[in-house]
């Protein structure tokens, strides 16, 4: 199997053959590439099956009417999109999705940054407290969602029972059952589950900021706020951007918490775009409509991805400069 025979010239990412006087033949070049292709073949197959094909399928379905169970398709052009755009429920859906995404992104990053600053302090015993703070991030999302559903229970949840025992009867609301409070309640639960991750992300970067910078700033008479504003924050710019994008995607992606805590209710108060896709596809069995919704969301994520790539590059550059 000459195919499987690796040779030192090809290892280490050097150009296959040293600057040749004449162009290497196709055969020689293919021989140089073959082991690489062979190794990545399983990954390529998975990408084709689980990414390229789904995208093509989704786009195809989005311009068709799909009949179940035979999956017979009838071309309808942009009908599915037109129906989404003309649906009076669509704009509120967009609003709810935005409120949800902005809500969890702001809460998670604000809490994560604050926690990172607290836990970055050199105080004895803080490492042990940090282990406790991370716990919510480690438990499965299904468990976290059930936990909060139990806490927010109207009749017997610990939140309302505590409020009642303090004599604050009127504060004991139907948290998950009322459209006005449901969104806030799920945002709290989702923030709880995710802010430790943001904290760890920021903390890892913070610990890479050279201590000398702070010492020099102190000698120059900078106070705590100035040190934060002119040293900490600029060093965290890249990692904050990565966190921002990851959390936006996570917000758009979130499904478990919402389905378990509210199921998108009450009266669609917590129904966001992703849930709408799921329900259109698997409760209304409108695969064409669900695909059109997917395509629209896909475009939004694609835009995010472009930013993510840029942010990732910037983060790397910064790490190299500092290191």
């Amino acid at each position: 199997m000459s195919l499987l025979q690796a040779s030192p010239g090809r290892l280490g990412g050097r150009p296959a053959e040293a600057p040749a006087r004449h162009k290497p033949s196709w055969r020689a070049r293919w021989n140089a590439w073959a082991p690489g292709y062979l190794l990545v073949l399983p990954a390529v197959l998975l990408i084709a099956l689980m990414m390229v094909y789904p995208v093509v399928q989704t786009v195809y379905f989005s311009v068709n009417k799909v009949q179940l169970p035979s999956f017979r398709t009838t071309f309808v052009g942009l009908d599915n999109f037109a129906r989404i755009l003309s649906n009076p429920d669509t704009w509120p859906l967009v609003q709810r999705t935005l409120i949800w995404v902005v809500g969890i992104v702001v809460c998670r990053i604000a809490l994560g940054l604050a926690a990172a600053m607290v836990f970055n302090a050199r105080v004895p015993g803080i490492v042990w407290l940090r282990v406790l703070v991370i716990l919510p991030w480690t438990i499965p999302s299904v468990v976290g969602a059930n936990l909060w559903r139990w806490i927010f229970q109207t009749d017997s949840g610990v939140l309302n029972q505590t409020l009642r025992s303090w004599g604050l009867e009127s504060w004991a609301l139907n948290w998950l059952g009322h459209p006005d409070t449901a969104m806030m309640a799920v945002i709290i639960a989702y923030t709880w589950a995710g802010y430790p991750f943001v904290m760890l992300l920021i903390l890892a970067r913070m610990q890479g900021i050279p201590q000398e910078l702070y010492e020099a700033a102190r000698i120059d008479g900078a106070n705590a706020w100035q040190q934060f504003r002119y040293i900490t924050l600029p060093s965290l710019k890249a990692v904050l951007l990565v966190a921002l994008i990851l959390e936006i995607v996570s917000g758009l992606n979130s499904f478990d918490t919402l389905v378990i805590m509210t199921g998108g209710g009450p009266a669609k108060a917590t129904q966001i775009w992703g849930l709408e896709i799921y329900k259109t596809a698997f409760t209304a069995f409108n695969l064409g409509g669900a695909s059109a919704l997917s395509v629209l969301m896909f475009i939004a994520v694609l835009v995010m991805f472009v930013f993510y790539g840029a942010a990732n590059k910037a983060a790397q550059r910064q790490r190299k400069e500092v290191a």
Partner: protein
Amino acid sequence: MTVLDADGPGSPSMSAASRSRRRAWRTGFYRSGIVSLALVFVAFSVLPLAWGISTALKEKEAVYAFPPVWIPSPITFENFIAVFNNAALFQSFLNTLIIATCTTVIALVVGVLGAYGFSRYRFPGRDTLLWSLLFTKLFPRVVVIVPFFVTLRNLDMMNTYQGLILVYLMAIFPVAIWMLKGFFDNIPVEIEEAAVVDGCSLPQLLWLIVIPMSKPALAAVAMYSFIIAWNEFLFALVFTNGLSKRPLSVALAFFIDENGIRWGELMAASAVMSLPALIVFSIAQKALVRGLSEGAVKG
């Protein structure tokens, strides 16, 4: 802070002793401030969990007690016993275990091969493939449930272990490749070159040299894959029906019977489900943060 900074170093009248006393007081003040802030975060993180554990250890009547009781008395394990004797839950537990283990093994194989290929070889299309891998990582799962549904129907894999493993892989293998590639990039290539000169073939190279050298990275990837597969909910919900292949996550999400939700048992089952995740996270926290945030992107 400014109040404390005002009487900074060197008021000449201050004696050395009083200055050091002042500094000690200041450190003490600073420390207690930090610790109390830290305790606020700890309370936010831990109180909900503590309430869940407390519920799991309570007798049926005590679960709804008013005012709420945080420390159960007497402590009972009847909820845990009920969970372990629940045949349907045990089946779900087994399903999750089988699916998570198989997904992890396959993700490791695909990951090692792919990462080594991307790390050591240059070929046309390499960069495109790497970027599309990174993109699959951010791919929203809700967007792909419809096409996956169609694919699994066509492959006749609905409600099977193979089907679930296949869709779970999609969420895992890109990160596996990125994490391992980052690791391989940092292994000096000279050892492999020497082995090739000695007549080592590619499979031998991987099996005898690369894999033994990358055990820590493989362990991190294995734990990452296992946890993602263990916790997965959306795909499990859409691609299973009935109890036979239903994983634990779906079972717990719809833990309800004609008498409503038995919160004590649900919390006990949740504790059991959280245990593997808790163990893995405590071992491999750093690797997981890296994997989730950037796929250990290098060069």
